[in-house]
């Protein structure tokens, strides 16, 4: 564990607005007193809670300085076993995909967009199998919960807690220019991540978003290093990998998107570098595949430790708005993926994992909109099947870029993906009246094929509507 010395801690403190506020308070407390001893300051600090604030600040700095460790083992054994099974399944899929590409080359046919190792439907279908496989001891109250798609006994935050946490978003108002300028100055001057998180929770001006993200990830003075690293990776791309072909196919969908088609080449370049980046394995917060080395297979896992999946391009696309420099876009994408998006593809009981998020959504909808929950089940279109695409890809392709970037702000702001639960609930509530009239899955598909515009604030409002 990396430890900071006192000098380093002081430097980090000095880069925080909160530190200078505390200092101002202390100075004010002593007015024009000439001689002030350490004991005097300590007494004063204790009397008006400044000591607590300073302690929290320092412990946060120390916590952040700890080197991030990748979560490999889950607290629930069953999920560790499942991860192995999932990896085996993906290896099989890889073989099938490889065979398909070989056949296509021989037949000289057009590229099939179904050439991917797994998509969100595959992942959800796999998670569903847990219900049948676990011992009864792991079930929650089976009778009561049996109508849910996912029904696993994992430690889950209460859904009311999540709803309460994000309720402040209902009170967000359009800010005046003066307030926006104040926030701009705050972002320019602030370096401490908890302060940046607070800003990200409320409002991030478009012009300062990239700076906030770079500061939060501590990249703001590292441009040269980022550029050098990226250039090295680009050179490695000259040596073609089979996965490159899958990434090129994945890029077809983004190349048809009216908001992202202009970035098609940049997205592909970023992804090709990504699957060659050795540092990802040590930076990623959670292990996605268990890295079992298969014998007698032509391909092993990429050096990242996980397979690229369908629509991986979607995670890069919104970040292309933030900078003209590809090495910056890459650095931001890598950080977002390693910290957050990886959980959307992890077989895990962690709070941010796809499993937990899905269960939270089912819990809220089955409790707050039981009619909708039941109706969707009856017409063969479970709640989660309807929402899984939006959830896994953070609504990219469903919302316009400004709203996606607001989602990314909230993810940073709370260091969590829970905002996706709120938005998924809101999405289902928004279309509730139409969904209740749907008689089958085709009707449901038609509802979502119409030209629609889903907005961040609108979905938040709907999430809390009864």
């Amino acid at each position, binding site marked *: 564990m990396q430890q900071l010395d006192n000098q380093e801690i002081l430097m980090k403190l000095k880069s925080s607005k909160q530190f200078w506020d505390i200092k101002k308070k202390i100075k004010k407390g002593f007015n024009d007193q000439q001689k002030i001893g350490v004991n005097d300051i300590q007494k004063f600090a204790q009397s008006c809670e400044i000591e607590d604030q300073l302690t929290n600040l320092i412990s946060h700095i120390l916590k952040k300085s700890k080197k991030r460790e990748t979560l490999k083992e889950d607290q629930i054994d069953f999920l560790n076993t499942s991860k192995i099974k999932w990896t085996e399944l993906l290896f099989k899929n890889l073989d099938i995909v490889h065979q398909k590409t070989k056949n296509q080359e021989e037949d000289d046919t057009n590229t099939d967009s179904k050439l991917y190792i797994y998509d969100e439907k595959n992942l959800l279908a796999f998670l569903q199998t847990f219900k049948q496989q676990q011992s009864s001891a792991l079930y929650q109250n089976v009778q009561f919960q049996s109508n849910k798609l996912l029904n696993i006994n994992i430690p889950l935050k209460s859904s009311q807690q999540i709803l309460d946490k994000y309720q402040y978003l209902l009170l967000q108002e359009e800010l005046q220019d003066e307030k926006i300028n104040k926030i*701009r100055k705050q972002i320019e001057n602030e370096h401490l991540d908890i302060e940046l998180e607070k800003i990200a929770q409320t409002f991030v*001006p*478009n*012009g300062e*978003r*990239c700076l906030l993200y770079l500061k939060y990830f501590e990249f703001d003075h590292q441009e040269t290093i980022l550029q050098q690293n990226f250039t090295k990776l680009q050179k490695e791309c000259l040596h073609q990998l089979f996965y490159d072909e899958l990434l090129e196919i994945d890029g077809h969908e983004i*190349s*048809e*998107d*009216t*908001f992202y*088609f*202009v*970035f*098609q*080449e*940049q997205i592909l370049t970023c992804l090709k570098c990504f699957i060659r980046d050795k540092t990802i394995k040590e930076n990623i917060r959670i292990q996605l595949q268990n890295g079992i080395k298969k014998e007698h297979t032509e391909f092993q896992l990429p050096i990242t430790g996980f397979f690229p999946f369908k629509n991986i391009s979607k995670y890069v696309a919104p970040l*292309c*708005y*933030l*900078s*003209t420099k590809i090495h910056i876009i890459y650095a931001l994408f890598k950080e977002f993926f390693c910290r957050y998006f990886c959980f959307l593809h992890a077989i895990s009981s962690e709070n941010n994992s796809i499993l937990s998020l899905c269960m939270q959504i089912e819990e809220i909808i089955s409790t707050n909109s039981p009619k909708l929950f039941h109706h969707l089940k009856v017409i063969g279109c479970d709640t989660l099947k309807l929402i899984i695409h939006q959830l896994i890809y953070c609504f990219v392709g469903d919302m*316009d*870029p*400004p709203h996606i*970037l607001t989602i990314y702000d909230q993810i940073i702001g709370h260091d969590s993906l829970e905002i996706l639960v709120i938005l998924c609930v809101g999405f289902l509530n928004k279309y509730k009246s139409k969904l209740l009239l749907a008689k089958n899955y085709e009707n449901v598909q038609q509802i979502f094929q119409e*030209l629609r515009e889903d907005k961040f604030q609108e979905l938040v409002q709907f999430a809390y509507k009864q």
Partner: protein
Amino acid sequence: MQNKKLKWKSDFEKSVIIENFVNRGWIKSQEKEEEQTDWNVYWATVWNVRNIFNPKNGFRLNDQQIINHFPNHYELTRKDCMVKNLKRFKREQDKEVLETFNFDFLPTTYIFPGEYSLFVEEFHRNPNQTWIVKPAARSQGKGIFLLRKIQQLKKISGTTVTSNMTQLNLASKENYVVSRYIDNPLLIGGKKFDLRMYVLVTNYKPLKVWIYNKGFGRFCNEQYTTDVAEIENMFVHLTNVAIQQYSDKYSQKHGGKYSIDALKLYVESAYGTDALNKMMDDIHNIMLTSLKSVQAVIQNDKHCFEMYGYDILLDSNLKPWLIEINASPSLTTTTPVDKNLKMNLINDVYNIVLPNDDFPDNDQKQQQPTKVGGFTLLYDENLDPNNRKTQKRQSVKIWK
């Protein structure tokens, strides 16, 4: 509230025009070709407008008729006339004490054949400069080419052209404009694009201008390069949809059109809010200055309005350059998003020129709100004719 069943006529079989008429419950005019009386709203070709306003035809529009072009719109929308009028206006403004207009948005341009010798002098002064040659009155990228050698002008003269010639005889009767090629365009994803923006003028004297909040960038399908070997590759250099649609990389889904909202988000996020604001101010300046330059020469008529398609190119410093102004911007829709945009655009045009399906009198025109649908009032000379700078600042705030 719609309360009148107006009669409409259209020279275009475009759904965005006709559906808008039909949605309002207006009735299609059943008049014969030679009659010009039985319509209230006419979406006409520029040629029919010219015929209608031709004094020889002895036809006068009545108070219940409105048409979509000013009689001599070509002063603004023919490339050679636009250049001529801007240069004239600049000369006039240079004599003024107060500098109120910025003209630094028109690339150095010469009109052929008249200014050929001036061009040759400039050409020799800057031998590494690329020029773009365009027919003055054509559209959709037809007849356009990039010029690096004087000899290339054989394309338009029909005979060999050498650098010591002092005049140029053109094979056809049409004029050409030759402009300095902006070879450092702003690129997104490595590709060149230009902007199509919509401006509605409901009156020239006094000038009243509305700007539409939706528009789009038109992207080339090939990566931009200044490589001389690619100078004739129109898929690299010309952004016209009419050209790009033939690229094998053309997508039916987005048609190479990138919304102006997305572009503004990109510029603000990647370059900063101040950079975006300056860029928009400069674009508004182009629109106002170009319209002001023809204000004195355009035949103003209360029966007329005109919706222009402004083509603007951004360079790598985010500086906008005026390419041309279209009197009849395409109303063909290439994608669902495109259709949505143009349907709303035409709908909003009618909401301004015929509020409540009626012909507004002067008082009603004065009382119009500054925002109607996607249109925002950019300039109204009536409000403060002596303080144009104040107008510009206000209009920027309205746009936001």
